[in-house]
């Protein structure tokens, strides 16, 4: 075997680049810059509006956490090279199923929740199976599920109850062991104490008089953090993560190298459905009702968060942490615009401009730092 020249020779063809700059070349970079920018902006413009008091922070945290939950699923699926446009409908459908099972049929809450999970994850698997078997683009397949699931979410309660909202879930969830996992709060003691020492404002009247305005961290946020951590570890630290990248990067090549591409894709569809169901369950348990309009357009919001977070729409590249930052940016911007008192019909205009700005910035920063042409 020919001995090659010593390793240091190869360095002559690389411009020296500082360690710091090297460390910056991560898919999350755009997300990090965006987050800093967004917070700076709102700290300057909306600091007086209550956006950064306890209740304000909780408000945008909860909204961001919501985005995060669906963004994690969408992110892994997108990296695996597929889309799911049925996420929004799935949220509506899952909530409605829980409501019908628990309120109309009177099943115990935990059974209702578990059956809804099973149904939705199975639907996700079906989406994936159809995509994989027929070779159709997931855009089309899940567009069909979008219509079908939304249609069922309208039709079923309409037929059963003659209305499109089913309430009374909070009552049905009382005393259940599973419901608090989605609708409860943690660290209530700590916040109680914060309220007592005056760190957090307290209610001024009503039954809760004297209690802190924020009395704990909703499980929604806990779920978001857990899912982000899980997704991140799965993607970067495991064999399966490598398969996800490979399936999205080039399915044919991955298959030829022995990656079970079909299995990977179907599992990612199932995970996306799982995330959507977590979202829906948290929502119905918290609000106590399920409606036919829940989750509208959430699929786009998930995709937007993921793309702001630096993933490629075409698959094979991206990061869960980036997607989480994208969700944070999206949540903060959305609620921040309200705090900043932007005219509501201009809200979408701003949203569009910020979206565009975020992705352009993202690409641009990446180019500057990596020095692509």
């Amino acid at each position, binding site marked *: 075997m020919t001995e090659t020249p010593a390793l240091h020779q190869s360095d002559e063809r690389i411009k020296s680049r500082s360690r710091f700059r090297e460390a910056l070349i991560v898919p999350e970079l755009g997300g990090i810059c965006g987050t800093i920018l967004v917070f700076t902006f709102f700290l300057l413009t909306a600091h007086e509006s209550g956006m950064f008091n306890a209740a304000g922070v909780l408000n945008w945290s909860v909204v961001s956490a919501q985005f995060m939950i669906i963004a994690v699923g969408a992110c892994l699926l997108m990296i695996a090279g597929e889309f799911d446009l049925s996420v929004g409908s799935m949220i509506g459908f899952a909530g409605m199923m829980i409501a019908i099972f628990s309120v109309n049929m009177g099943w115990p809450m935990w059974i209702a929740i578990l059956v809804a999970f099973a149904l939705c994850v199975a639907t996700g698997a079906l989406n994936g199976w159809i995509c994989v078997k027929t070779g159709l683009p997931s855009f089309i397949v899940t567009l069909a599920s979008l219509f079908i699931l939304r249609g069922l979410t309208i039709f079923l309660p309409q037929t059963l109850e003659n209305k499109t909202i089913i*309430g009374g879930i909070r009552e049905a969830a009382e005393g259940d062991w599973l419901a608090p996992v989605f609708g409860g709060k943690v660290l209530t003691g700590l916040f109680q104490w914060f309220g007592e020492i005056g760190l957090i404002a307290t209610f001024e*009247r009503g039954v809760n008089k004297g209690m802190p305005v924020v009395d704990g961290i909703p499980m929604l946020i806990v779920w978001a953090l857990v899912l982000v951590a899980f997704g991140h570890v799965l993607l970067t630290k495991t064999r399966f993560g490598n398969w996800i990248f490979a399936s999205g990067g080039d399915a044919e090549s991955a298959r030829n190298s022995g990656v079970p591409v079909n299995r990977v894709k179907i599992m990612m569809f199932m995970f996306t459905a799982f995330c959507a169901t977590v979202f829906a369950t948290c929502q119905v348990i918290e609000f106590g009702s399920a409606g036919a309009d829940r989750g509208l357009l959430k699929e786009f919001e998930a995709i937007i968060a993921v793309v702001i977070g630096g993933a490629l729409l075409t698959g094979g590249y991206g990061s869960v942490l980036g997607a989480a930052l994208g969700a944070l940016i999206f949540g903060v911007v959305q609620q921040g615009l309200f705090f900043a008192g932007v005219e509501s019909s201009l809200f979408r205009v701003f949203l569009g401009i910020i979206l565009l700005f975020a992705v352009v910035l993202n690409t641009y920063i990446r180019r500057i730092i990596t020095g692509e042409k």
Partner: protein
Amino acid sequence: EGERYVLVSHAPDSDSWWNTVKNGIKLGGEQMGVTVEYRNPPTGDIADMARIIDQAAASKPDGIITTLADFDVLKEPIRKAVDQGIDVIIMNTGTPEQAREVGALMYVGQPEYDAGLAAGMRAKGDGVTSFLCVNHAIQQPTVGERCRGFAVGLGVELGGSMLDSGTDPAEIKNKVLAYLSANPDTNGILTLGPVSADPTIAALKENGMAGQIYFGTFDLGEEIVKAIKEGVIQWGIDQQPFLQAYLPVVILTNYDRYGVLPGNNINSGPGFVTKDGLEKVEKFAGEYR
């Protein structure tokens, strides 16, 4: 002087009817010298609306005016706002009882179901036996209540007579035509707003049933007023959204400044607008009516 109020609605961005509400708060705000901000969930998702109420409360306004589109979802956020010392008035959707339960000062509006019921009874009196309800916002639960009330008032099953029409005018028009062609015994039509009413008028004009079929609608608009004048539409139910927005602003300001409050809830509708006395309605349809 300079109080700040927030009005939160449940309507998606594109719902054109809410425009009158915006005009109401604008005028009310100008006259009283207060600022009123309008907020809504862009897609009409009521769970998102709950977050907006939370957000509004966190920004510490002097008062919140909100609809009660889904009592289950909204009662908690509203009650929390009330408990933080913010005055709340419920407008548009909901019922006086629900408003009391969440601790709101009062209710200004037209309970959707009751309005539908009243319309249905009126139509029954006019001899309608089977009807078509054109629903352009099937996903929005509050609007559907009108159909439900109408069916009960009429004393018939709602069944398949509610048409999920979408919002595209050509599609609405052709769906109505298709429905009427497939169900020739239909003798009454109810539309739920200008979005569904305008193309339905066009449809009836096209198939020659304009003026022949009993036709009522919710909410007013230019085309609707014109159609009432022409006799194509028998009546339009005006719930006077302008008042629903204007009055709470005035009431909240006066309550904040002088502590005065009306002793009862205000029903802004249903008011039946017919051929008689259309002049003012015509002038301000879609703007203040």
